[in-house]
């Protein structure tokens, strides 16, 4: 494909600079994208100015500023999630932390670990739309599921071959944790479990990627499970 010449690029660049795009790396990308659109139109027989006009219509300059903002926003959001998982920790959760973790004097009864070790997770856990969705862990099939705190197995339910079993554990301080999507349960109803104890294995569908939904409630009210564990807690 024929490339635009230096003069043509400079013309686009001048129009660009009048617009003051905040993010220089985005400016490079937008310029290259626009140039590609122009080259495509010229390939089809248009002259430069017609092609430029057409490209501007397709990718209007008014949208650059908005695009730059969206890019910065998307990046910041990703970095927050990536580097600082505790960002989501609200003051309410801090108070809860105090009550359960320190007030109880027993770290084991506080769901401070993840139900799935990080090394068997194949993707970042997915956060639900609301707290009652809990967190969805995507894991290799048959990965072990661990009790996130000391407690008593309150209920085991089999929801059939597609969903698997669900397990409900009662912890002290009115906390319950629920694990959905197991195929093999290694504990029984009424049994006392310790933090980190293996409860069973994740249902493994044919493609070998399993899903475990994990919910935490406090006095029957759904909480964001991430408020209880740090994403780097799993040490062993």
């Amino acid at each position, binding site marked *: 494909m024929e*490339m635009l010449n*230096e003069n043509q*690029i*400079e013309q686009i*660049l001048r129009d660009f600079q009048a617009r003051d795009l905040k993010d220089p*790396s*985005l400016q*490079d*990308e*937008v*310029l*290259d*994208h626009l*140039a*590609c*659109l122009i080259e495509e139109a010229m390939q089809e027989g248009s002259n430069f100015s017609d092609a430029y006009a057409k490209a501007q219509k397709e*990718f209007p300059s008014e*949208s650059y500023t*908005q*695009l730059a903002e*969206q*890019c910065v*926003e*998307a*990046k*910041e*959001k*990703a*970095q927050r*999630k*990536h580097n600082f998982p505790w960002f989501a920790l609200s003051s309410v959760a801090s108070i809860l932390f105090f009550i359960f973790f320190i007030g109880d004097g027993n770290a084991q009864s506080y769901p401070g670990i993840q139900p799935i070790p990080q090394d068997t997770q*194949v*993707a*970042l856990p997915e956060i639900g739309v609301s707290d009652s969705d809990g967190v969805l862990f*995507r894991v290799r099939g048959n990965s072990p599921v661990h009790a996130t705190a000391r407690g008593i197995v309150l209920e085991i339910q089999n929801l*059939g*071959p*597609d969903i698997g079993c669900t397990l409900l554990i009662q912890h002290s301080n009115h906390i319950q944790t629920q694990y959905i999507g197991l195929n093999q349960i290694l504990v029984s109803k009424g049994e006392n479990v310790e933090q980190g104890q293996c409860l069973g294995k994740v249902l493994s*569908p*044919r*493609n070998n*990627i399993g899903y475990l939904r994990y919910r935490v409630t406090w006095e029957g009210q759904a909480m964001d499970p991430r408020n209880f564990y740090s994403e780097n807690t799993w040490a062993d």
Partner: protein
Amino acid sequence: MYICFMYSKELLKGTLQTIILKLLTEHPKMYGYEITQKVKELSAGKIAITEGALYPTLHKMEAEGLLLTETVHLGKRVRKYYSITPQGNTRATALVEEFNEFVQTMRTVLFNKLNLEHGNAERESN
């Protein structure tokens, strides 16, 4: 402003990451415009990714460590190439599998087409 053409943007919104990551597992490096063209070609023109959807998603995935970038100077132009990281590869596999599952579930829900090879066999074995 978003990916659309033949399909509603709501329908396609969640698939953009999957599409981009999958493409990058198959190509060593691609730049923005190239991605839009490839998707247009593969979908026979039915899916057109717009800049407004593409670049924020690329930048987000780069910040998440799923993509790496490299810039190449072409005279006054600078072209930014994206390539996939091992972490991105893992994510691509998971997203593609998940989407595949989702499509099968939707077919079952909408058309009551039970997946004969798996669904029935699993049900009978239980």
